[in-house]
Each structure stands twice: as structure tokens, then as C-alpha cells.
């Protein structure tokens, strides 16, 4: 284990952590807003997968990663309408709706994968390039970790601040939180609960689109059907363990990202422990985190409860 702590390797691990945290940050901040609006949306995994598929298709046909990102985000925003329709209009059980969307996304992906990808020459697609921030990337140690990343990573790291500001310092954020805590209060004032929840679901979904697209274009070099590998679920874990507070959620995400970075490097360095045990770490950590961090004081009161006037 000691060799993992040498200088260049440590830098590589921490830089890897930042890169791995990027898609999780996007999805988590989106899902946080959705859940603060009272919607227990567990379809993050499926939505990220959909984003990744769309990003792959568009990037390999047009060659532009930015066009691919745009398409992925739009597709995820569109697909969120299904979730909104089923949970807000039909008021079906939110858990079941999310489960159905996850199964649909993985089923459609498998069909698409078997039709268009498997057994064919993998198409060339351009991912996002590394962007070195002038001057800052030359700082020893911190420079290569924080300032030689993909452009989207810098946005992902600003996102928690933006979401915090939105939720706690703006009128609209207050309304979103109110929808999650006490929707009736908002309804009585003549403000629509449904529209706000619909927008919150859409925001969460399009952020998952960012997450899935980044995973495809900024992290992986080829598409596999289990590309997301439970990251969408880790996002949900991070929100619960972070007690629905933006910066604590970020903290949980960094734990998962660090463990995954260590797992990847352990494989490269060749530690004698089978690498499967490193790959398990984020999932074990999620159970430990949930058992240890049991405070649910900021859980929205009406989370998962469909709102109706009767």
C-alpha cells in the first residue's frame, strides 16, 4: 500500500479523483434540487445511461463533443417529462416510476448496443480535451490536480455553490424547498406545486445528462452497457448521507471518487490484493456512510409523497 503514497502517484490519484467526481457532482446537484422539491426520483442511473448513449451516438456521427453534450442534455430533459407525467399528473408511486425508467433505459440501451455497436468496428469519437488553466496549472502539486482538467470539471466544481445560492438565497429556491416541505402552503398562496416539481425533475434530469455525457466523453474511451456502473445510485446515497445539504453531499461524493481513483491506480501499480476488492470499495463505503451518517434533519418532509388537494 505504501507505494500508493509516493508523490507523482498521489498527484495522479487525486487528479483522477477530481475527474471521477465530475459526473457525480453534476448528477448529484441536479438530483438534490429534485429531491428538495419532494420528488424521490431514483432514475438517476437510467438517465445518466441515456445521456451517455446519446452523447456517444452524436459524438461518433458529428465528431463534436459539444454538440454531443447538448444533445444528451436535451434528450434527458425530454425523458424527464415521462417521470413528471407519471408522478405529478398520475400521482403514481415515485419509487416505482423511477424503477420503471431505470429498467426502460437499460433495456433500450441493451437493444441499441446489440443492434448498432456490438461486433462492429468501434467508431472514432472525440472526447473533451484537457484544459490547462494558465499559471494556475503550474503550481506544484495542486496545479496538476485541480487545474489540468476538462473544461466541464471546472463548471462542476462551481455547481454546488450555485445550487446552494439558488436554494437558500433566491425566491425560487425557497419555493422549491417549500414544495418539498409543505406543498399545501404554496398551493394555498395560488402558486403551482406541479409546475415547480416538473421543473425540478427536469433540472435534475438534464444535470444527469451532463453527468452521463461527461462519463462518456471525458472519462471513458469506449461504450459498454454498464458504463454507469451504479454511479447514479451512489449519487442518491451521497444525497442521503449528506443530509440533503449541498456541501455535505459534495463531501460524500469525494469519498466515492477517491475510492474509485485508488481502485484504478491499485490495478495499474499492481498491488497483490485482487483488484475486485478495490472495485467493491465505493459500494461498501456507501453502506458504511449510510449506517454512520444517520442524521435526516434536512430530509424534505413531503419527499416521495404525491401532492393532491384532497
Amino acid at each position, binding site marked *: 500500500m505504501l507505494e500508493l503514497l509516493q508523490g507523482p502517484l498521489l498527484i495522479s490519484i487525486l487528479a483522477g479523483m477530481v475527474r471521477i467526481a465530475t459526473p457525480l457532482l453534476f448528477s448529484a446537484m441536479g438530483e438534490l434540487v429534485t429531491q428538495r422539491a419532494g420528488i424521490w426520483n431514483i432514475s438517476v442511473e437510467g438517465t445518466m445511461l441515456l445521456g451517455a448513449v446519446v452523447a456517444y451516438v452524436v459524438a461518433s456521427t458529428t465528431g463534436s463533443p459539444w454538440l454531443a453534450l447538448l444533445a444528451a442534455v436535451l434528450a434527458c430533459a425530454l425523458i424527464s417529462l415521462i417521470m413528471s407525467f407519471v408522478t405529478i399528473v398520475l400521482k403514481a408511486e415515485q419509487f416505482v416510476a423511477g*424503477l420503471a425508467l431505470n429498467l426502460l433505459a437499460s*433495456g433500450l440501451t441493451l437493444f441499441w448496443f446489440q*443492434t448498432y455497436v456490438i461486433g462492429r468496428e468501434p467508431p472514432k469519437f472525440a472526447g473533451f480535451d484537457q484544459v490547462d488553466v494558465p499559471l494556475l496549472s503550474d503550481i506544484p502539486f495542486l496545479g496538476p490536480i485541480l487545474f489540468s482538467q476538462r473544461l466541464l470539471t471546472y463548471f462542476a466544481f462551481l455547481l454546488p455553490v450555485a445550487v446552494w445560492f439558488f436554494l437558500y438565497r433566491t425566491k425560487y429556491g425557497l419555493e422549491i424547498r417549500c414544495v418539498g416541505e409543505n406543498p399545501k402552503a404554496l398551493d394555498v398562496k395560488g402558486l403551482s406545486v406541479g409546475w415547480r416539481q416538473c421543473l425540478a425533475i427536469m433540472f435534475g434530469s438534464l444535470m444527469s445528462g451532463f453527468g452521463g455525457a461527461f462519463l462518456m466523453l471525458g472519462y471513458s474511451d469506449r461504450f459498454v452497457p454498464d458504463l454507469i456502473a451504479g454511479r447514479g445510485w451512489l449519487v442518491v446515497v451521497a444525497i442521503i448521507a449528506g443530509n440533503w445539504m449541498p456541501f455535505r453531499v459534495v463531501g460524500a461524493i469525494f469519498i466515492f471518487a477517491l475510492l474509485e481513483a485508488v481502485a484504478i491506480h491499485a490495478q495499474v501499480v499492481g498491488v497483490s490484493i485482487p483488484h475486485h476488492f478495490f472495485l467493491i470499495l465505493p459500494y461498501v463505503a456507501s453502506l458504511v456512510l449510510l*449506517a454512520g451518517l444517520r442524521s435526516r434533519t434536512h430530509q424534505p418532509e413531503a419527499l416521495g409523497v404525491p401532492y393532491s388537494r384532497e
Partner: protein
Amino acid sequence: MISVQRRSGSSLGWNITCYSAAMICAFLTSAALLTFSGGDPVKAFSALLTGAFGSQNALYGSLAKATPLLLVGLGTVIAFRAKIWNIGQEGQVFAGAMAAYWMSLWVAPLPYWLAWLLIAIAGLVGGGVLGLLAGYLKVRFGTSEVISTVMLNYIVIYILAYLLDGGPWMESGLTVAYHQSSPVNPLLEWPILLGQGSGKMHIGFILALAAAAFCAVLLERTSLGYEIRAFGSNPTALRFRGTNIRRLLLVVMLLSGALAGLAGAGELFGTSHRLRAETLLGIGSSGIVVAMVGGLRPSGVMLAALFFGALKSGAIYMRLKSGTPAGLVSAMEGLVLLFFLCAAVATKLQLVRVEEKVHA
């Protein structure tokens, strides 16, 4: 003017209309999907039907594919009726198969019937313990079972990957890992009841039918079944009645996991005869769909398991005959579930003609 109102009772005719409409929508969407991807829906679906029901052997093949789905579906029903959202069927199927495989390494010297029994029990215990673990996390730490069961899925799948890839269960005599175990001892294979070649139906089908009867009696005729249903509809009332909620939760998770575990053991010893992740993957999630589409009732689950078993079985023939990938069936599962979810809401509504009042 026509308005939508809540229906007071339920009407069988309207229910059938809603669910048939959902099924038609799911098939039409799948057909659109096929056309869009350059396939021929008529050719593909007729091949699917032939592969599922075209011959006696095809029929046995469908029943064989329905067997694990029925078991997992029943386990899901027990949990979901209590609104305990166990979605760790995938891992529980794996754990059952792994426990049964482990047991099979020891029991060969025993009399056949005893070895067979011990293997089946190991399957039940393997899946049950994994379910129980999620139940314990919920009871002790308040961890949402939705999350813990999913996380346990990944953990178990990675453990199996380790065992078969460089671990102790790697196929012996090989230097390259094929991600599978050596074949199980042929003496321990579960007996084939009917069929031959690709359509072999093993004794697990009888076990699954027995499990369906067990679940129907459990849910409708026992006090545990009453508590399960009551916990799903009104947990507060149950708490006031003095029911031990923690015990109930643990028992439900144990039973739910055990049935999924038995499905895993049956797949290993009745069908694939080798421990291999690909042969088990997807049984868990299909079982959840079967439970939901079956209306969370054992009788409905039997029908749904036959339907999806037939789809899975027919898909193999469909791929050979029309080149349509078998993944279509996975997509259809998602579509059917989504449309059924909408139909379930629609069954509670009715359209009423309302006379508009003319204000003088």
C-alpha cells in the same frame, strides 16, 4: 362535457380494457423501435411467437425460462405488498447460486436426495441471508432498503467476478479466465421433467408452482400475510396493534431473498450447470417486472412469468431467424412496466358525462 372522476369500486371490464391497452401500446412502441432501427416488426414478432410457442419443445423452453422469473416475482410480491422495496433480486439470485455451488462441492458423497435437498436449501439460505442483511441494515441503522439492496447487488456481483476470475472457483486446468466455474457434478444436476435440446424444463418449475401456492396461502390465509398487507397499507395502525415491526421487516426480507436465491440455484443446477455471471444476469430485474405486471398477486405473477418467460425463450429463435437482437425483450420489459404503471392509475378513474349547467 366529459370529466374524469375517481371510480368508487373497480370494474373487471374496465380493468381488462386498461391493461389490454397498455399491452398494445407496449407492443406498438416496440414495433416502432424495430422499424426505426431497420428491422421488420412482423417478421420479428412472428419469429418470437414461433420460438415461444411454435412446438412442444418451444413451449417447454418457455416454461423453463418462466421458472426463475416466477420465483423471483413471488419474492418481490412478498416484499412489495408490505411496501418494503427490495430491489436486490439480482444480487440475491447470484448469492443463491453461489451458496448452492459452494454446497455442491461438499455433498457429492451423500445420497442423491439428501445432496439435492441440501443444495436447494443452500440456494434459499444464500439469497435469504443477503435479503436479511439489507433488512438488518434497515432495522439497525435505518438505511433505506432501496439503496442497500442495490449496493449489495454490485458487491455480490464483484465477489462472484473475483471467485471466477483468479479466485478459488475459476475453471480448473485453465490459465486464462473464462469467467466461469467448472461444470457442476453431473450427478447433482436437477432432473429434467420434460423436453430435450434447447427446451429442457427442470424440476425447479414444480418448486416454483409450489412456491406460488405457498405465497398465495401466506398472503391470504395467515396472520403473517395479514401483517404484510397491513404494513403496506397502514403501518401506523399495525404499530398501534402491537406488531413487532422489526421482526416483520426481517422476516419479509428473508423470505423475499430466499425465493430469489432458489431461482439462482435452479438456474445453475437445472439449466446452465456452470456458475457464470451472464446466465444469471437480468433474472432479478425481469422478476421485478413480472411481479409488478402481475399486479403483486401470486396468480397474476404466474401469468406474467409465463408471458415474459415466453418472450425470453422466443427471443433466442427471433435472433436466429430475423437477426433482431435479444435485447429487444429487455426494452419491452421496461415498456410494458411503464405502460402498466399508467394503466394501474387509469383503472381507478372513469369518464363521466357531466351536464353543463346553463346559468340563466
